[in-house]
């Protein structure tokens, strides 16, 4: 009962302040994109490496955020789609000499196709769908590990070719970072546009109350399929960059723990918030790098972080930051 009232309250709040919310989203975009383009490139070295890793997982987390945070379609196999994207792109570049932009598009398409396949399972309602997404992740991981002829099995793929764009070979990390940051910026902007449009509103309605969404004439099944396919395609794009950073590709980058980590990123950052997904990804990638002495506590700490953030900050870091700034503004008035 209380949730419905709360949802109604937030919904009405959102509709009255729709314009300001729009402006706030673009302000957050400006800040995040500004940091993204300035920090890693000016600091260089290890920070550039961190920036590369953060950008990849930020892209992936954005995909998961629109699925889980916005549209309420919990996926427990997100890393599998990163894996599909990574293998598609690398194998095309390595074995067929396909240039990187085409391989990237192919990665997105392959992950989208797999996502569409998984989306067929939405006829399994609620709980059943969640466990099916987990099963999907397991199946993909086992195929990547065991189809040795195609993927090289658990030994992985070595000698990842350099990114080739329009005949240029991008050998440096700076070049790679520019490609990644461009992709992230574009995707982030597109997703903000999308989340304020008709489709985004339908996704959000789906996430808040599926029955109510259906009753006002939203084609629930079609939008669910759409958001799952879109989220998975974005994971495929993120996956396509991963091997170029690691210079190595192995199925172990796409396990259940990676899917979980992506879920923790968006929960910690704030379910439903696009900037939250990026903030969460940044924290979960950067923090372990500085706490390497405590590496054996990593997943334990992630678990505590997940539960603590859910209890203390139900709307995540982005939500807490937003209410903080709103509180200040009210004080100023």
């Amino acid at each position: 009962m209380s949730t419905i009232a709360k949802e109604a309250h937030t919904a009405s709040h959102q509709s009255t302040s729709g314009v300001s919310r729009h402006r706030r989203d673009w302000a957050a975009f400006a800040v995040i994109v500004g940091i993204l383009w300035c920090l890693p490139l000016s600091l260089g070295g290890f920070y550039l490496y961190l920036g590369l890793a953060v950008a990849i997982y930020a892209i992936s987390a954005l995909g998961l955020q629109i699925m889980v945070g916005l549209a309420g379609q919990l996926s427990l196999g997100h890393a599998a789609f990163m894996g599909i994207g990574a293998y598609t792109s690398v194998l095309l570049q390595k074995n067929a000499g396909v240039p990187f932009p085409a391989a990237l598009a192919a990665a997105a398409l392959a992950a989208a196709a797999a996502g569409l396949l998984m989306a067929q399972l939405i006829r399994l309602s609620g709980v059943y769908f969640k466990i099916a997404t987990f099963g999907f992740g397991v199946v993909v991981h086992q195929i990547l590990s065991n189809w040795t002829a195609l993927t090289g099995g658990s030994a992985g793929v070595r000698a990842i070719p350099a990114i080739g764009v329009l005949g240029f070979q991008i050998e440096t990390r700076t070049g790679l970072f520019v490609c990644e940051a461009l992709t992230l910026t574009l995707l982030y902007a597109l997703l903000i546009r999308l989340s304020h449009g008709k489709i985004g509103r339908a996704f959000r309605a789906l996430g808040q109350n599926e029955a109510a969404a259906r009753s006002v004439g939203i084609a629930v099944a079609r939008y669910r399929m759409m958001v799952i396919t879109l989220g998975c395609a974005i994971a495929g794009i993120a996956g396509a960059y991963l091997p170029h950073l690691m210079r190595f590709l192995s199925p172990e980058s796409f396990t259940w723990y990676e899917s979980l980590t992506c879920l923790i990123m968006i929960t910690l950052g704030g379910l439903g918030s696009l900037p939250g997904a990026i903030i969460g990804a940044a924290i979960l990638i950067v923090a372990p790098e500085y706490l390497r002495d405590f590496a054996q506590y990593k997943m334990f700490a992630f678990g505590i972080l997940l539960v603590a953030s859910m209890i203390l900050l139900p709307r995540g870091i982005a939500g807490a930051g937003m209410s903080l700034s709103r509180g200040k503004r009210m004080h100023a008035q």
Partner: protein
Amino acid sequence: MNFSLQLLSGLAVGCIYSLVAVGFSMVYRAMGLVNFAQGDLMMIGAFIGYSIIVNLPGLPFWLVVPLAAAITACLGYAVAQSALWPAMQRGASQTYLVLLTLGIGIILSNGARLVWGANPLVYPIPLTHETLRIWDYPVPAVYPFIALTMVALIAGLNVLFTRTWIGLSLRAAADDAQTASVMGVNHRLASAISFALAAGIGAAAGVLYAPITFVSADMGMIGIKAFAAAVLGSLGSIPGSVIGGFVIGIGETLGGQLVSSEYQDSLAFLLMIGILLIKPTGLMGRKG
């Protein structure tokens, strides 16, 4: 490998899946909660069993099982009271609750890794290596234990739920919490007891499973397959969970032999997805 032997091992693993799946179903019915930490509670139970065996070397195995189950049930009770109930009370969404149980699962499995170490452990008891001869086949000596405990637990649960006042209140709270609380059933207590019972049953399964395999922090993955079993047999139905456990256990063992053992986990999930696509409410589900 012999077909009958495979069938027996499938049945034994099926019993383990069934027990964990029963725990899933009980929590789902009592709290409307998909408990992704159930497998990790089973893993904790197996580790607690290990500590009991190491610290009390003389204790017979049939006493280790209930002792580990009781300790894990207390842990489950604490988890339900401290973490799950406040969230449910707030009317948190299903996504939130799933993430919460996932978080609890991560804490349990990685906490176990810190306490008991990252290397897989073997129960230091003769039962781990002993075999019996049944119809001339060598069968691990723990199989009769598994079968007996399984039968005893399911029978016990049946008696508990149909013949006792506690079981009646648990069922009442699960079916209609509001009406039950009017009748004087404490919903919070009923939820926590159901969760603790499920944790205890899972722990018993973990201790019984340990002699066939290793005890490791990754054992919780079994729990996810058990979840597939519970779903396949219709979530919330105890007979369904038992049947689902056997279908997954035998299906993946025989399927692993026929296809390839590397794909055993995939087979379990494909089996589940296939059955659900044909019968969306599960094997024991009612139409509608």
